[in-house]
């Protein structure tokens, strides 16, 4: 009977094959990559670059003429620039991680090395960009700006000259690098997007390029869950809180960063992005790719995105406080993340045939 069961099932299958056909609408991966690039990746990086310009401008203005309003504007500009950059988490590959650009580590590592930063503030070492080439990444970029702008308990206007120099210099670095992302991705510059769309260079084939999109969707979420939330929560350390592991503790911006990172993943999934000016761009995304094979996964996936966002929004007043005082709320966030990650890594990946954590070695 065991032997005949497959044959019986097959007979049933073939008998039912004569009816409606499966959805056979053509789906073009190059078009998806192109539209994701034009509608999501490039606008996001342009927004991040524009927010970083505003940050540098605010830093320069404040340091030139310190005032309450100037400091407040600088703080707002930092928060805007930081979350604008987080909006690119779901496609943090290519120029973000690969040489020669390898932009990510230059501005996007945390937590801050406070001892090194304090030493820099009190020493006479150079603070120009070239002086940081041999210094740790955690004395640079967003993490150090979060520390320098928000941790000072000094009176307004009493920042030392070196602190101002440091803030202005690092704001300039963030502006320069975010502009570098735009340059590296755009067709007029490094044309990283073109490499993906054509399946060239770092991407041996369009499917490989599309696979990277799917992989980063998962890894971006995993990083946010495990490192931005789970680590401070002590998930890896027997529940012992690691309060020095937050991403942006001084600005209390860690929660906003987490939320924006999830929105970034949702943008790539949907192929839709609303830019800082409120303009919505919509095109093909991972949702359409998966949908070309399986239509039943979209509803659960969107619901799981919503569940993560809802769990994040339920945290009050901020991540730093909730980690200490509201363990169940944090646990809800982590659990919601895990469900979504599993859906992406197992269900969506299987639907399109992408092997997450792919290793280019022999199989079977």
């Amino acid at each position, binding site marked *: 009977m065991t032997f005949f069961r497959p044959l019986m099932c097959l007979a049933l*299958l073939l008998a039912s094959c004569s009816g*409606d056909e499966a959805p056979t609408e053509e789906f073009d991966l190059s078009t998806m990559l192109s539209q994701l690039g034009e509608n999501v990746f490039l606008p996001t990086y342009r927004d991040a670059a524009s927010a970083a310009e505003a940050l540098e401008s605010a830093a320069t203005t404040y340091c030139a003429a310190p005032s309450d309003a100037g400091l407040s504007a600088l703080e707002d500009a930092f928060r805007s620039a930081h979350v604008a950059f987080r909006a690119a988490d779901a496609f943090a590959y290519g120029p973000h991680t690969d040489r020669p650009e390898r932009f990510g580590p230059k501005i996007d590592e945390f937590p801050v090395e406070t001892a090194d930063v304090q030493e820099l503030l009190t020493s006479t070492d150079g603070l120009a960009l070239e002086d940081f080439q041999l210094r740790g990444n955690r004395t640079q970029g967003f993490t150090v700006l979060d520390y320098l702008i928000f941790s000072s308990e000094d009176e307004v206007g009493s920042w030392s000259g070196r602190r101002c120099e440091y803030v202005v210099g690092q704001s300039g670095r963030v502006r320069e690098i975010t502009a570098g992302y735009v340059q590296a991705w755009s067709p007029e510059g490094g044309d990283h997007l073109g490499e993906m769309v054509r399946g060239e260079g770092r991407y041996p084939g369009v*499917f490989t390029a599309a696979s990277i999109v799917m992989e980063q969707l998962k890894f971006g979420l995993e990083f946010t869950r495990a490192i931005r939330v789970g680590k401070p929560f002590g998930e*890896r350390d027997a529940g012992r809180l690691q309060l020095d592991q937050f991403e942006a503790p001084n600005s209390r911006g860690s929660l906003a960063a987490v939320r924006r990172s999830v929105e970034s993943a949702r943008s790539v999934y949907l192929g839709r992005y609303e830019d800082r000016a409120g303009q919505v761009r919509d095109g093909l995304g991972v949702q359409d790719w998966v949908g070309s094979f399986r239509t039943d996964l979209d509803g659960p996936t969107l619901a799981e995105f919503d569940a993560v966002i809802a769990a994040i929004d339920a945290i009050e007043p901020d991540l730093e406080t909730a980690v200490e005082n509201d363990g169940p709320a944090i646990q809800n966030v982590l659990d919601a993340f895990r469900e979504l990650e599993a859906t992406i890594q197992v269900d969506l990946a299987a639907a399109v*045939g992408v092997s997450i954590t792919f290793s280019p070695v022999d*199989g079977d």
Partner: protein
Amino acid sequence: MFFRVAFGLLMAANVVRYELAGWVDDLYVAPLVRFPYWGFEWLPVFGSAGMHAMFAVVGLSALAMAAGYRFRLAAATFVVSFSYLELIDRTNYLNHYYLVSLLALLLVFMPLERGRQRVPSWCVAAIRLQLTLVYFFAGVAKLRIDWLVGAPLSIWLRRHIDLPLVGSLMDEYWLALAMSWAGLAFDLAVGPCLWFRRTRPFAYAAVVAFHLATASLFPIGAFPWLMIVSTTVFFAPAWPRDVAKGRFATQRTKLRSLVGFRDERGRSRMSGPSLRAGAVLIGAHFLIQALFPLRHLLYEGRTEWHEQGFRFSWNVMVAEKFGMVEFRVVTPDGATSRVHPSDELTPLQMRMMQTQPDMILSYAHHLARRWRRQGLGEVAVYADAFANLNGRRRQRFIDPEVNLAAEEEGFGPKRWILPLQEPDSPVVSARRTR
């Protein structure tokens, strides 16, 4: 002779390929954690120099085999060094590397030194039988509903939709179905067809076509070339000379001569106790080869899902699984730490462990040892593992309530693997509901 030379050169080339691709470092040097086979945990693990040296031994012994230089010693050295590399980490298990080990093991007993003009016919027969068993069991393994409805292939072919010319066909269901049945028919039929004179040329053409097609579509390394080369043993030993002279005669296989320990002229190469010992050894080998792939019948449930009895059974490309796993370690005082295995495993180890329960168990034991070494006592280790099989919706893979640190490795049934809930693959259910 052709087989000896081709097999040796192919294996040597494979070593060069591993070195050039950096896989010796990536797969054998880089791992911080290993997944040795049960019973082989005692094997020492060498550092970088040792691993590269071991690959050099594999390569040199393969070349010596090809040259027929001290053939049996070379073959024995190859078996030991190659098998060592396989046994120290289940991550690197490949069906065709298992076949390489078996073929090389058979070669150890064969008089194939350089200069020998003729070999006993049992040598040819043994290799032919070994290859036949591989194809046969690979075909039997495909007699599963998921394969018959084209579920695994429909997933794999999607990866080729950007191929020029044929790419647009690659997500067509009929193609997956047709290729599945063609693969099944090939595996079941090619072995017997290679044995018979009339069908042999067609069967070999099918071997070449099938393996070239799979080589172009799937990353299966040396396997296609190994089979294309190895199946030439079904031709008369003089076939290279015949081809060189422009004729390609096919000889009738004399069954009686193949099962005896005699050469092609019928002269006995062994006698008395050595004949009996040889016959017993070869007989035992093939008895094991005939039974071992069937051991999965001893376990309940879907073999592709729980993977008990899956390895060493010629389950060649029969299933596609996707998985995700994390671990919880609970100390005696109740404190829980979550472990992300990707912190210390290589990407390939992660990919393999996520869908292979015995590797999940081994990693759980590794975590328990790690905590013990840190003086944190006897911890409990739980897995949050999810997986799917051939495109079904994901489900929990491992019972999250079972302390894996307390579970034993071995051949016993692993009751902590949760049964597959969705019986039919989505391809079937989709067709039924539309």
